């Protein structure tokens, strides 16, 4: 295989694996703040048990997130040297800001969060919990800003010639608030908060079905349900805003998301299959639906892939189409599920509806899939550009790194990440099966696991 494909597969694999963890850290961060805040407010030790239990699970996800995250920073230099040279002037400052403002905050307070229960005053501990949560939120901001600049570059100019050409900042805030940044930061935040809430929902639904830890599980489930419902609904709005932004700023990407080849009124597919050779989509569609969503009119023409030269179109239109549609479908399912659960809560039947609780046990996988496929659609839809309209992916990988070196690191990461994943799932399951406290004792108290 050639170096470009290997470098892309390696980046996709390592970042995809990394992205299992940060959304859980962000999402669980909010729940930990809520649980610990409730404990400080009510002095009810059930909330303390919940806060400590979820802190332990958070710690596990955080360690894996950190160790797989440093890989990403290094890979810019090792595998994408020409890209680093081109964007360093612009891209480096948000990355450095992430490190110094966000990662420092979360990593330092993490130590206090996990090990400081007996060493600090409750309020100091609570501040640390908030610090970790805010740090992880800020992290997302800077990373997504940098990625958004690759999608919709602004606030820069190109200086230098040939291989030494690079983008230099002319306006920092125009770079930070590039056209897609705000929409995408919100979209990523909300996706992460949903992922965390659904993990809490899943675990406590499982306890409720088993009849274990019933009282605290009801409390945790309801808090997480409120979080999940609010953010599943807001994701609808955020997703729409993102799509409108893509239509404005990256029309070729939007056309790929919907498999829209010919400029004209755009159809909206509920599901379908794109044949890139015949440029046809077969599936269930709402005629003019895409035009309506973008312009509130079924007839307004939408730019199709036919407006772009072949070498400027994403080559994997079907992959972009499918991943995007899976994400949207899952988003709708989560809204349906959470709203229905709220309805049953209102009817006071929530905890007696066993099939619904069972659905929540398994629903934990849905936000994870949505987060992954959403990013795949965003990144593959940007192709063939690594920086939209400025730098091609084929001009961005390290010229000096050889295919055998890439194969070596691929295999290395493949084996290590597989091992990490198995251990993560094993230890997570073990913690969950053990539960928040020792059931043998009459009083709920903190587990010594």
């Amino acid at each position: 295989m050639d170096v470009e494909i290997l470098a892309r597969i390696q980046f996709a694999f390592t970042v995809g694996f990394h992205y299992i963890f940060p959304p859980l850290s962000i999402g669980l961060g909010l729940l930990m703040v809520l649980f610990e805040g409730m404990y400080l407010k009510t002095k009810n030790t059930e909330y303390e048990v919940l806060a400590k239990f979820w802190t332990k699970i958070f710690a596990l996800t955080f360690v894996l997130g950190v160790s797989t995250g440093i890989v990403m920073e290094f890979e810019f230099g090792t595998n994408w040297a020409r890209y680093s040279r081109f964007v360093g002037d612009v891209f480096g400052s948000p990355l450095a800001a992430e490190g110094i403002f966000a990662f420092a905050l979360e990593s330092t307070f993490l130590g206090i969060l996990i090990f400081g229960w007996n060493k600090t005053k409750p309020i100091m501990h609570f501040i640390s919990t908030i610090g970790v949560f805010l740090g992880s939120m800020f992290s997302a901001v800077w990373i997504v800003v940098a990625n958004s600049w690759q999608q919709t570059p602004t606030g820069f100019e190109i200086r230098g010639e040939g291989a030494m050409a690079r983008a230099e900042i002319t306006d920092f805030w125009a770079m930070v608030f590039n056209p897609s940044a705000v929409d995408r930061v919100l979209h990523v935040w909300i996706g992460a908060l949903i992922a965390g809430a659904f993990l809490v929902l899943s675990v406590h639904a499982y306890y409720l079905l088993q009849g274990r830890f019933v009282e605290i599980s009801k409390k945790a489930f309801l808090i997480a349900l409120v979080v999940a419902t609010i953010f599943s609904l807001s994701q609808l709005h955020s997703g729409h805003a993102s799509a409108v932004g893509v239509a404005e700023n990256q029309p070729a990407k939007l056309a790929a998301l919907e498999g829209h080849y010919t400029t004209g009124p755009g159809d909206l597919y509920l599901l379908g299959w794109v044949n890139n050779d015949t440029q046809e989509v077969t599936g269930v569609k709402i005629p003019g639906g895409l035009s309506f969503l973008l312009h509130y009119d079924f007839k307004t023409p939408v730019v199709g892939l036919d407006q772009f030269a072949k070498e400027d179109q994403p080559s994997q239109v079907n992959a972009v189409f499918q991943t995007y549609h899976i994400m949207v479908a899952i988003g709708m399912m989560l809204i349906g599920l959470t709203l229905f659960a709220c309805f049953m809560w209102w009817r006071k039947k929530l905890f007696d509806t066993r099939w619904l609780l069972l659905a929540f046990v398994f629903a934990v996988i849905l936000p994870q899939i949505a987060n992954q496929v959403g990013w795949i659609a965003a990144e593959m839809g940007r192709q063939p550009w690594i920086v939209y309209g400025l730098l091609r992916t084929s001009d961005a990988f390290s010229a000096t790194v050889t295919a055998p070196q890439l194969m070596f690191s691929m295999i290395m990461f493949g084996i290590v990440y597989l091992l990490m994943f198995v251990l993560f799932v094993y230890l997570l399951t073990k913690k969950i099966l053990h539960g928040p406290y020792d059931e043998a004792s009459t009083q709920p108290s903190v587990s010594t696991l």
Partner: protein
Amino acid sequence: METILGLDYPSVWFIIIAVLFIGYAILDGYDFGAGSWHLFFKDNTERRIAINSVGPLWDGNEVWLVIGGGALFAGFPLMYATLFSGMYVPFMLFLLFLIFRAISIEFRSKEPMTWWTKTWDTSYSVSSGMLALLLGVVLGNVLQGMQVGDNFDYAGAGFFEFLTPYPLVIGLLSLTLMMWHGALYLMYKTEGAMQQQIISLGKKGFILFVVLYIAATLFTVYATPQNLSVFHSNPVFWLFPLLVPVAIALSYIFYTKTKYVYGFICSSLTIGLLLIVAAMGVFPNLLVSTIDPAHTITIYNAASSEKTLGIMLLIVSIGTPLLIAYTVIALYIFRGKVKLDETSY
């Protein structure tokens, strides 16, 4: 060109990045060093104490690496690109051990089986040592110069080119120095029989380090005379290399007087001074091309635009006090001897 205190922006950035990496080497240095001793402890409780002495802190220490890397990326993108792609294999190995070290700390005490804890103990200790070694190897390559070719791309090839004698000696120097540094840290964090053990081990570590320090100094004079020219240009600069043996001697004197915190401060100074000497030696170059002087990467041809360096200066001047405050708070909260409780690893 804009200046601060008479220094142009690229020079200021050279200093900032040097400071960040010195901070990183001192902080992750003690936990790499402590980890390297790990297998010398035989008792399970002692090993838990050893892991918990760095448990709440290693992650905060690694932040300095992330920030140093980010600053290098933003400040000197050309250097970042060439160094990281040119040192592909050592950096990949560095990542491998960084990951193994993190998960070893996290997973070790999650299961009671002996095979489980022993596996993670070994993985923790080996990765800690290898990380200390690799940091030195990469530094040795930078000091020695690399095959930088057209477009400032690395022109070498092959898996093991980074392993030449000089970088290897610098790697061993880094390993033994961090082990001495980490031993002093463990002496401060432990008590009783365990403390006695690390006190006697530490002495052997110190002797090894001194041997390597002398060897590396002689090798540097022999192999990289270009890095010494700065000291001939101004005799005052000799102060820094001459302070190194003073710091080393002081760290040992405090050690014999059982003042381990002061000893630790002196070993931190040793790391700092050695890196200052190295930075002075290469300045204003970042990476000398061994092929063609025209391809040498300097702070000027690698620097980002003045605008970016200015913005970053603002970010760093707000961020660095915060970073130092966080580090101090964490060190303060987890000060003193390690006591195992239910939140420990």
